[in-house]
């Protein structure tokens, strides 16, 4: 079991592939075809394109505040790739690669960051909760979703995300504790990208690793190279299978790095050195997976460049559609609070409509 070999107290990080894309432990490579790895790689590329486009549009003043994922694609895509059809995804807000992997279309995502609540109205068949801005609060929902699967006798597993900063908030500890007590089929993934806005991981906790917080909750944990797609897949797969067998929750610390800013409102040069960023650029998850696939002969530089171009264009096209959707409809801010609008809201709505007619 990986969680035994690389458990929280082993002080080892689980890796399958090194920074150059070379396989370190061939016996640990998950049983997946090259075609499947290529699919995952493409999702990483798509995530990066969507990110780049959003940032570019934000600079042009067409997109609002946006939280980029660059550098964290393997942690997101690798973990989501291990999920099965009926499994639930519970996001924080920086998991674009995971969302796309689970069938959320980019249009929804862009609509959300464009500032319209309809961006959180996923289709029925997408088992994903909305973005949760209050840090770590979503973990409680994840445990509840998983407890419900247990209570109903269903075998679906819940995969929930949180950042390194989020591990400091009470909700995190409470969620882990509940998950352990109720043996909930949930996998917690900490994307440790080393910063919570300007606050470094070292200032967030005196604990040597974040995954060691699993020990206190009495649940298994594993520290994984979050920039290694294969390792993320393997660790999540094992945790999901354990949960599905009825053996309860797992905590995964994906050790990664936010190459970009916290959001478009943030200036990371105020709190970190360029050299640090550069050392992490060498560990880029996309670069190493590309090298691996090219080495296997299933991918080429030419195909890569062409696909990036395609994804860039697609992202722009999607955004244009979102942009054309314009402002939120007035009735939309009223009509979703309850199944039926109560009289006082109806009245406020009508009064305002009347006012608008009068001023026109």
């Amino acid at each position, binding site marked *: 079991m990986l969680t035994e070999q690389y458990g929280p107290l082993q002080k080892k990080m689980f890796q399958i592939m090194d920074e150059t894309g070379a396989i370190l432990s061939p016996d640990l490579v998950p049983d997946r075809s090259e075609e499947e790895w290529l699919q995952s790689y493409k999702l990483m590329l798509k995530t990066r394109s969507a990110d780049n486009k959003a940032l570019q549009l934000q600079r042009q003043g067409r997109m*609002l*505040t946006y939280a980029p994922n660059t550098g964290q694609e393997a942690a997101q895509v690798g973990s989501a790739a291990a999920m099965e059809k009926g499994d639930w995804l519970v996001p924080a807000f920086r998991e674009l690669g995971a969302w796309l992997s689970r069938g959320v279309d980019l249009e929804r995502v862009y609509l959300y960051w*464009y*500032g*319209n*609540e309809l961006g959180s109205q996923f289709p029925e068949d997408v088992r994903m909760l909305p973005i949760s*801005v*209050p*840090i770590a609060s979503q973990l409680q929902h994840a445990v509840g979703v998983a407890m419900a699967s247990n209570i109903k006798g269903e075998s679906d597993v819940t995969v929930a995300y949180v950042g390194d*900063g*989020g591990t*400091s*908030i*009470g*909700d995190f500890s409470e969620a882990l504790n509940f998950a352990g007590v109720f043996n909930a089929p949930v996998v917690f993934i900490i994307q440790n990208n080393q910063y*919570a*806005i*300007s*606050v470094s991981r070292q*200032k*967030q*906790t005196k604990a040597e690793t974040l995954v060691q917080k699993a020990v206190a909750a009495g649940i298994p944990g594993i520290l994984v190279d979050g920039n290694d797609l294969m390792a993320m897949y393997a660790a999540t797969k094992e945790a999901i299978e354990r949960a599905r067998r009825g053996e309860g929750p797992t905590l995964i610390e994906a050790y990664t790095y936010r190459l970009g800013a916290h959001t478009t*409102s*943030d200036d990371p040069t*105020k*709190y970190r050195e360029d050299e640090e960023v550069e050392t992490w650029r060498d560990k880029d998850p996309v670069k190493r997976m590309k090298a691996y696939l090219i080495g296997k002969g299933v991918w080429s530089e030419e195909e890569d460049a062409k696909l990036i171009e395609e994804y860039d264009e697609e992202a722009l096209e999607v955004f244009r559609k979102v942009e054309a959707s*314009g*402002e*939120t409809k*007035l009735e*939309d*801010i*009223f009509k979703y*609070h309850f199944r039926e609008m109560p009289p*006082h*809201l109806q009245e*406020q*709505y009508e009064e*305002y409509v009347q*006012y608008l007619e*009068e*001023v026109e």
Partner: protein
Amino acid sequence: MAVMNLISTINHTLDVELERDDSVVVFGEDVGLEGGVFRATVGLQKKYGEKRVFDTPLAESAIVGTAVGMAINGLRPVAEIQFSGFIYPAYNQIISHVARMRNRTRGRLHLPMVIRMPHGGGIKALEHHSESLDTLLGHIPGLKVVTPSTPYDAKGLLLSAIRDDDPVIFLEPSKIYRAFKQEVPEEDYTIPIGKAKVLKEGTDVTVVTWGAYVHEALKADKLLTEEGIQAEIIDLRTISPIDRDTIIESVQKTGRFVVIHEAAKSFGPGAELIALVNEGAFLHLEAPPTRLAGFDVTIPIPRGEHHYFMDAQRMAAGIKKVVHY
């Protein structure tokens, strides 16, 4: 005298007080090294050291809870909550302890502490970054709740808040952090908590508002003036305790009352203000006291924000209805 905007005034005021009083400490998420996401504390860690100006882990309950302990043990903590919408994890500490310690211990312990935060909306932000907590905080016995609308007032009120021997919540309208500049005296001055300010005298209607809406209301007043309506505009400045006298005196003169606020209408601060107008000026009223308030909905994210927040024109239309009642 220096010319400053609201955010640089907050920074300057914290600087003044850190310099003057060694017991003052300033902390919160991103407050130290970076100087705050809005730059309210920029440069202060460098000047006063990591012991007095520091970053905390991401945990609002612990930020407020430890402030309680520090205040008990001789410090004057000034804690920052990054956005008002993230106060909720700390709400337990605020209601259960911050507001009660003096009363619970019958005066043995008291909490000279300030909790500051960006407040209110209109900045095209993500969900939870536009919240109005007037009622949620004002309703708690044992708390003072203050909100300045100008740099000048911000300095005087923040100095009063830090020097107050009881806990003060300091709500900073983020929409106007950088909206305009004003001359702010370098020297020490305070503005008493619990005192509203009459910004413009008038005889036809009393208009009470606070925070960023003050500036919109002043624009509305210009529209009203063009139509010959003389409104008296009052900036409440302190949400709790309310300056009853200033408001009653004004309504007794004008006979009409309008309160304008960002927070949702039902159970909002407007209800409290109207109640006290009814209690103190009922026989002077010539029209029903009226609330121009947020709809009873969750504040929309950016593309719907304009539906929620009022502009001067909408305020003026609402005030006119009361005048022509």
